[in-house]
């Protein structure tokens, strides 16, 4: 079965550069979530989209922005990268949101290293 696809798998950037992470949800899933997991830490929720509209916002820095496109894929744009942005970025997708009781399915993550 198709899973959540994230690209790239690995990304190395320098400080102050920009990065774009992509997430392709499972077909027919309309909700996408982004999480950031620092070394040795639990995943932290960044932002989510339902039907191409932002549905919830977590601890996403102002330097980051995200959107969900008409084909439901999502992109996380990160600017003015800092060393502390080095982390594993997970994307998850589900069908519906909140009360629909749909589990999240996660991608394998994009490992971002900022040097």
């Amino acid at each position, binding site marked *: 079965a198709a899973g959540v696809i994230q690209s790239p798998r690995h990304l190395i950037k320098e400080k102050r550069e920009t990065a774009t992470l992509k997430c392709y949800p499972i077909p027919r899933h309309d909700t996408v979530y982004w999480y950031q997991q620092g070394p040795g830490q639990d*995943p932290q929720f960044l932002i989510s989209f339902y039907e191409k509209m932002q549905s919830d916002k977590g601890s996403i820095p102002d330097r980051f922005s995200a959107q969900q496109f008409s084909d439901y894929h999502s992109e996380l744009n990160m600017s003015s990268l800092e060393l502390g942005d080095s982390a594993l970025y997970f994307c*998850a997708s589900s069908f519906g949101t909140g*009360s629909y009781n749909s589990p999240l399915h996660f991608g394998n993550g994009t490992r971002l290293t900022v040097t």
Partner: protein
Amino acid sequence: SQELEQSPQSLIVQEGKNLTINCTSSKTLYGLYWYKQKYGEGLIFLMMLQKGGEEKSHEKITAKLDEKKQQSSLHITASQPSHAGIYLCGADIEASGTYKYIFGTGTRLKVLA
């Protein structure tokens, strides 16, 4: 304080031992999910519980939902090194008139061979 608390935060057990991880919500639960993450890999969905008293099993892992206590427990029988990782609970909760999805604080499990 966290809306979804897990305990313990970390756990080291000897191979073959049983263990239990708890997930407690401060809000009404509308669905409780358990995930496992192997270190450095993606989160894997284990099981979903929706009704009070519901119990589900996946291989040697059993999860129960106590609706009254707004708590779920994940029990691993005869633990193996392959069970090591981070266990996260997720839940649909109602907050300020809307539903949202949150994660628990996570439990790091290490199984010694």
